[in-house]
């Protein structure tokens, strides 16, 4: 018995969906609901010169640009979603939302 091996040529495809074509996914949200996102809290930030950065030592104190009472920023990747504050959830850190960006 011999095995025949042939080359495969992919056919050229054309988008045939029109304005009136029916939607394939009826419940869009149920699909994207499977996607998980990770929110990031920025506790604070500071601007340092490279010289200052290179001179940092263990035990160095850096005063951040934000005031103690200033709300923390909540990001979805680089997009600022809103603001909030740090809270303790049992012995873990949590974030309580105080303002959401429209």
């Amino acid at each position, binding site marked *: 018995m011999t095995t025949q091996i042939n080359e495969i040529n992919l056919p050229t495809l054309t988008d045939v969906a029109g304005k009136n074509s029916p939607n394939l996914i009826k419940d869009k949200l149920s699909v994207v609901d499977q996607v998980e*996102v990770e929110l990031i809290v920025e506790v604070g930030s500071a601007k340092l010169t490279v010289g200052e950065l290179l001179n940092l030592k*263990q035990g160095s104190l850096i005063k951040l640009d934000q005031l103690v009472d200033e709300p923390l920023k909540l990001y979805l990747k680089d997009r600022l979603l809103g603001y909030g504050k740090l809270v303790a*959830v049992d012995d873990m850190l949590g974030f309580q*939302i105080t303002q959401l960006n429209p």
Partner: protein
Amino acid sequence: MKYDIGFLKKNEKNQLIEVIYESTKQWCEQWLSSDDKAIIELSEYSIYHQTLIKDVGLICFDYNQKAGFLNTNNELWTKILFKGLEQKIPTGNLTSFLIESAKKDFLVKILENDESNNIGHHLAEAHDISFLGIPIVFDIHLGNEKIQLLVDASFVNTRLDIDRANISNNFITVDSVHEEIADLSIKFNLDKLSIQDLMDIQVGDVIKSNHHLIEPFNVLCNDNKIAFCSLGQSENHRAILLTSNHETKK
């Protein structure tokens, strides 16, 4: 032994001149009232210098012969140190003491920049120097006067190695970017949410994280983790205390 400076690349020569220039500048600021800037030139060590060392000697520390001045009479140093006052300066022990101190201080700055080495060591006149590396000659022009400094290439290599550790491959020194601004930020991730949960979020909601209350925070520099810190406040601002660098923690 090949007595030339051809073994140094252009950048190394420039860097070497810079090292000597900085030492000279510091010395000038402390010892000279003149605003004349030093001009440093590298020249090739030759049989001429070898003869000069034999004839007039090299003035160097008794504990370190890696750098020294070609011996000159005190007249040259008097002209440099007491410019315009040469005729009024008494040629006594005090003047000699000042000149000797100035020479010692100059060598300390060139050798290690360690003032403590000045204490307890004396200048010595050497006529038979065994250089470990290739000797290099620096002509240090101060106004109309010229001091000739000889250094051993082994000293040069040590100084350059130190400097190389702080520079990138293209020899742009870190000093040149010292004033550039870097952004530091302290961030932590919250627990992952589904899109549905995200869209249901309202003001007042609390989102948990996997971050323990006593766990240190990451310090990021342009999104690269560089250190760990604890969070607190200082002078009504949020503040961080650096606890360790990132490599150590890993």
